[in-house]
């Protein structure tokens, strides 16, 4: 008696959580891994490197403004 109940429960949980469609045809291949890791890794690495450089170079006097144009206008 316990076994069918458990089976039903398991089926219900599976139905609630498992995706409707699954295809084993498209399992991530070695080529897919390489492309994914390279692509995502490259853009993430590039952004990380840029942020590190921006943070390293940021100094108060490099804050953007255009006050250097003012004297020309006022002249």
């Amino acid at each position, binding site marked *: 008696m316990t076994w069918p109940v458990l089976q039903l429960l398991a089926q219900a949980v599976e139905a*609630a*959580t*498992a*995706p*409707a*469609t*699954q*295809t*084993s*045809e*498209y*399992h*991530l*291949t070695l*080529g*897919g*891994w*390489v*492309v*994914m890791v*390279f*692509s*995502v890794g*490259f*853009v*993430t690495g*590039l*952004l990380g490197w*840029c*942020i590190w*450089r*921006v943070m390293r*170079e*940021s100094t108060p006097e*490099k*804050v*953007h*403004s*255009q*006050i*250097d*144009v*003012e004297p*020309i*206008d*006022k*002249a």
Partner: protein
Amino acid sequence: MAEQSRQNWGTRIGVILAVTGSAVGLGNFLRFPGLAAKYEGGAFMIPYFIAFFLLGLPLAWVEWSLGRYGGARGFNSAPGIYRAVWKSRLSPYVGALAMLVPVGIYMFYVLIEAWCLGYAWYMATGQLNLGQGDKTAYISFFSSFVGDAENGSILSATEHSPLVFIAICVFVNFFLIYRGLNKGIEWFCSWAMPALVVCALIVLVRVLTLPGIESGLGFMWNPRTSSGSFWKSLANGEMWLAAAGQIFFSLSVGFGIIVNYASYVKRDADIALSGLTSAAGNEFCEVGLGGMIVIPAAFLFLGATTVMQASDSSFNLGFMTLPMVFASMPLGQYVGTLFFFLLFLAALTSSLSMLQPAIALLEEGLSLNRRASVAVLGFITFIGSGFVLYFSKSLVALDTFDFWVGTFCIYILATFQVLLFGWVLGIERGYAEISHGAEIRIPYWFMYIIKYVSPVYLLAIFVIWLYQQITEAKANRFTAIYSDPVVLLSVCFLLAVFGLFALLVSQSVRRWTSAASEGGNSR
């Protein structure tokens, strides 16, 4: 001009986030994954990254350089900047195109932004859970929400009307624009961009923890060999065209926006690293987040055939297919809400940037104050958005605006800018401009890419794309002008807006010329 209080960016991170926010939009999360899935998965990334280095990045640097060059000479609007670089009567009038492009795109983009907000709301309140496995319900929901059954139907819609969401979006856009560059755009982007990334990361974690996600990732990233071999699929010219187009549109180059934003940067401040950082931020959102979320999840729940059918259209993928995916996904209601909210943030940071170039022209060319220029632009965009909203049948007006302004004019403007930099300013002066204050050294050969490769690349894409449009019998954009009255009306409307901007430019030129002849300033 001297009486006008000049605006500026508060921090360097602020300007980078603002430019990144301008670039990151729906294309990052919907168009890119759709294209990558369509064109042989992993094979697409090769032309994509080549286009990034040969087209996207050089064009971004060109815009940053032209902008700061013009800004240092007291100009923030594209007409003024182009005139500062090229002393020709024609140059400021090309700048009118740099006004039409962002304003014309804003007119329909704000509606799409409202759809995203509306979908986030309906997803949060459970009204978008229309069941699993039947796409018809989602298609009819979208159709009634955007009113594509009949012109003007949106104005009489009672259930699921987008009007409230449109009103909210317009108000937020103009409120932030009215607050100015520093207190409006920069302030908003400084929290909206991190919030967008956090939302995307939460959605990403949910997607990557789905059982069987490996096959979804395989569908997205595996270099498939349906055409025989990997090299054969690489020889697909259409894929190269699509990759270049995606890079081009994704980085927001040719919109006249970066030119305007960069003009507010200090003369001695770096633009090389800032330009690279904002481009990298856009790529991270596109490849690192967009590429890992949408297609793998959609494939997992709907299968290859449905995803391939939806991948051709961002609207189909985003507003008809994904809600069905979220309805099937455990915790889908919360994940879907976050996803559409992040799309809304991405759209809002982009639409904001579309208003600033025209505001700059109204302020510096006609000496209008902020309130008056916001009011004038508000009136123009109200008419334009109202036009697109009313002619909603089959989304013909939106599609026409998108084609002529969001594609055709952008190619022309980008080509003009790259020629302006490479051939008028010259690569010697251009390189000196980019290198001035630079915190990274850009290799000099990039100048040859800008001078020779990028224009040829752009022209080749443009000619092939134009050829495809002309020869396409089903959806020929040129014959549609005289066969479809709404298309004709839309094109006439855009020409009228261009004429209006040309008139404003001519008034501005007159003022600049008289100011220069009075010896008041360097103009």
